[in-house]
């Protein structure tokens, strides 16, 4: 048993002694490194080992939660006592409690979450990843005149979870990210863009030079961007921006939004909610996936949950709590908030790739916008109303014409998912939520 597991066990015992009828505790330890370089010099270097403990207790049907970064035994004891006391002051809630599925079992799958080869990479080499990436961006074109820098992050994480049902498990994971943000300049002004790669395994990372060059190309193609007239046209989302649409879908199908009736997808299981070419899954078991884990943050075994199959909504995602509220089963999507409570999080939540190459999708557009960046928060998951700032490239007769900025695109998520006419073959994982290129039949661009 690791140190973390021993601490977790002690906390559970203390909670029981204080009168908790059930409890679970999650401890995370992150050994993290990050470096930012800018214009060929190291700008910041950060390194630390940090721990945090998240406790949830139940006294009958009442619950409270706590978090601490200070794991000194006397502090922990005091916090456990206080958490149990707080629980007694909350209301009885019939749906509160641990999941009966949160039982430890031997043979949790090996999801290849850790790549030991990272440990052999020296700090100097890690700094060099960022240096090489930025250098490739800066030398890509004479119009790349400045940089917000390139950064490399690496973390090794250990997670331990224990509960009063006897669960006492742990797992380790590694993850790394390399991110590059060059700035291109022309007489009309500056444009920045970025490219990145993120993975648990070293051999799944794109090379620093490729990341730098792609980032530079993305910034260069935005030079000379201008506003366009207001119009209703087809919109193509690149994998980066399509990914944000999946993020909104995730919000809308999470069990907490459903029982609160704050989603445009309530009461829709078995209904057609998207075009027939759309299949979305939440797959916690993807080997080496950035969102993969053997069990969730409340000890429920993880799994593959179909969300949308051929356009039909199949499942919402649940914690133990939302599953009980809605008469369903937990889906292994429990995720701890910073304060120790349990909320819903995605595992590997993605839209399955389709058959079209991205350039085939562009060629199908007579007049439309290829969107490469979205900004702002104008998305209402209660109604599905959608309005965000966009940067993109204007397409005419299947060809890129000129870059576009200072416009918004607007519609309604329900109609947007219904109107997905083409799905690209280029599914790209840059995090736990992912999508390929998507073409939506029409949306309103607001510009001049």
């Amino acid at each position, binding site marked *: 048993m690791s140190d973390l597991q021993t601490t977790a066990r002690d906390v559970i015992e203390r909670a029981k002694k204080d009168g908790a009828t059930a409890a679970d505790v999650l401890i995370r330890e992150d050994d993290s490194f990050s470096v930012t370089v800018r214009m060929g*010099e*190291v*700008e*910041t*270097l*950060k*390194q*630390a*080992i*940090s*721990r945090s403990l998240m406790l949830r207790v139940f006294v009958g049907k009442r*619950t*409270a*939660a*706590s*978090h*601490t*970064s*200070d794991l000194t035994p006397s502090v922990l004891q005091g*916090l456990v006592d*206080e*958490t149990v006391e707080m*629980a007694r*002051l*909350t*209301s*009885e*809630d019939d749906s509160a409690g641990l999941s009966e599925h949160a039982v430890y079992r031997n043979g949790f799958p090996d999801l290849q979450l850790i790549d030991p080869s990272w440990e052999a990479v020296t700090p100097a080499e890690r700094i060099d990843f960022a240096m090489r990436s930025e250098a490739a961006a800066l030398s890509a074109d004479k119009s790349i005149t*400045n940089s*917000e820098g390139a950064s490399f992050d690496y973390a090794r994480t250990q997670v331990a979870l224990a509960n009063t049902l006897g669960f006492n498990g742990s797992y380790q994971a590694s993850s790394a990210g390399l991110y590059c943000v060059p700035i291109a300049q022309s007489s009309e002004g*500056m444009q*920045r863009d970025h490219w990145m790669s993120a993975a648990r395994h070293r051999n799944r990372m794109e090379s620093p030079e490729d990341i730098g060059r792609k980032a530079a190309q993305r910034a260069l193609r935005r030079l000379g*961007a201008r506003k366009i007239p207001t119009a*209703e046209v087809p919109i193509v989302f690149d994998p980066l921006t399509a990914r944000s649409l999946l993020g909104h879908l995730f919000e809308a199908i999470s069990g907490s939004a459903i029982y*609160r*009736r*704050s989603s445009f997808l309530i009461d829709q299981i078995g209904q057609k909610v998207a075009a027939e070419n759309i299949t979305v899954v939440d797959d916690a078991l993807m080997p080496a996936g950035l969102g993969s884990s053997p069990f969730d943050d409340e000890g429920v075994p993880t799994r593959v949950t179909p969300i949308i199959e051929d356009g039909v909504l199949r499942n919402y995602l649940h914690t133990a709590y939302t599953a009980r509220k809605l008469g369903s089963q937990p889906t292994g999507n429990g995720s701890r908030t910073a*304060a120790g*409570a349990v909320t819903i999080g995605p595992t590997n939540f993605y839209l399955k790739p389709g058959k079209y190459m991205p350039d085939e999708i562009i060629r199908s557009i007579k007049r439309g916008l290829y969107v490469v*960046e979205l*900004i*702002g*928060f*104008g998305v*209402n998951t*209660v109604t599905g*109303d959608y*309005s*965000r*700032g966009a*940067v993109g490239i204007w397409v005419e007769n299947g060809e890129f014409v000129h870059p576009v*900025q*200072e*416009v*918004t695109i607007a*519609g309604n998520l329900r109609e947007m998912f219904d109107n997905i006419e083409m799905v690209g073959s280029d599914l790209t994982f840059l995090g736990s939520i992912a999508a390929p290129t998507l073409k939506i039949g029409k949306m*309103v661009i*607001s*510009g*001049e």
Partner: protein
Amino acid sequence: MELNKSIFFQRYNLTIADIETYLSEALSRGGDYTDLYFEYRINHSIVLEEQIIKSATKSLSLGVGVRVISGEKTGYAYSDDLNRENVIKAARTAAFIANASSQGGKIGVPAPLDQERNLYPIHVFPAELEIAQKIALLQEADRAARVFDSRIKQVQASYADETKHVLIVTSEGNAVWDLQPLVRLNVMCIAEEGGRRQSGYQGGGGRQGLDIFAGDLDPKAIARESARQAILQLGAVDAPAGPMEVVLGPGWPGILLHEAIGHGLEADFNRKKTSAFAGLVGQKVASELCTVVDDGTIPFRRGSLNMDDEGNPTHQTVLIEKGILRGYLQDRLSSKLMKLPLTGNGRRQSYDHIPIPRMTNTFMMAGDSAPEDIIKSVKKGLYAVQFGGGQVDITSGKFVFSASEAYLIDDGHITAPVKGATLIGDGPTVLRRVTAVGSDLKLDHGIGICGKDGQTIPVGVGLPTIKIREITVGGTEK
């Protein structure tokens, strides 16, 4: 404010000798500057939903961040406890950035600065009060929202307080500590009618005791405002698409300033020349009706601080004076490198983050126009009074902010409410298009959260009623 009165000396047995050791270790490889940021933070929260108290949480955070600066380079490391060995290890890790030969030597801790000013003099910290008192606030809010209209079907009310102890010691002779309270109440309502659902949201708070929840911030007032917005939205029509004249109401719509110019004037972006505002000091960037300040010294405000997170006193900084760009928001690093005065804007989320230039409370000074005259002067336009979030690309200067409550203006009259829509503009041009500034400056209710480089911090904004000649409204109605 003697150092030994801080919690780190009293409860955690920190000594002057410890601090001297940490500072020397941090500079052992020859850095130019180092600082230690000790933080002990307690957060409480309570959530009411479906008319019951669903959960209560408590969070404890303790740690010390060690920063070493060598030229333009920053080394940073932190420890999750005040254990001597761990802090020394962090200091040595942070020191790694400096590659000059070791200078060693002892660093003395100076006498603390005299800090008479207290912008949050409160008698009883919310954290010290019984949970029952806080639960009562939520129950009041819940009842008020439900009584407001029978179409209100869901009410989620949440309470949060924070108590943050900070001690900062620098190798340049500053040694200061602060005790920073923060409290907040939010109410979210869902209204339903005939299969249509809409949400409303309102909150309030500041660096004050629970007595802040009175008047406009009475839990009942907050709840009624949240419910009113949800009900109003049930009857909203599609928002227009295209450029139009826009009137912004007073208070929270000041998020315009935060996005359009505030971020673009943060010194780090200007030192690196990545901001669309780089090199424009002394030039006209706004109509002469506009004077914009960032002020971290307003008592009890959410964005205010006695000192920033580098131990420097906060200021009122004039960003734009009658249309002319006057200055930037500085942290220590940028101020040194740009050879410009400090403004007390070096802020960080917590001990595990590096301080960077950030806003405090950013607002526009009041003008002369009567707000009702401003609305009357618009033939066809949009009147936006409530907003969700905003975002800016500081390099291209393009920014957005999303209206959650807005109305059409027709021939000088406010008419139909419209659905939420994002407004998009260009930072360096939008303030040149301000054609009227009202006399009704209001600060927001104390709910702002700002994100930058993965760090979130509390901020404030404010605005009088203003008129913008043209900005693009991102609705669907062409």
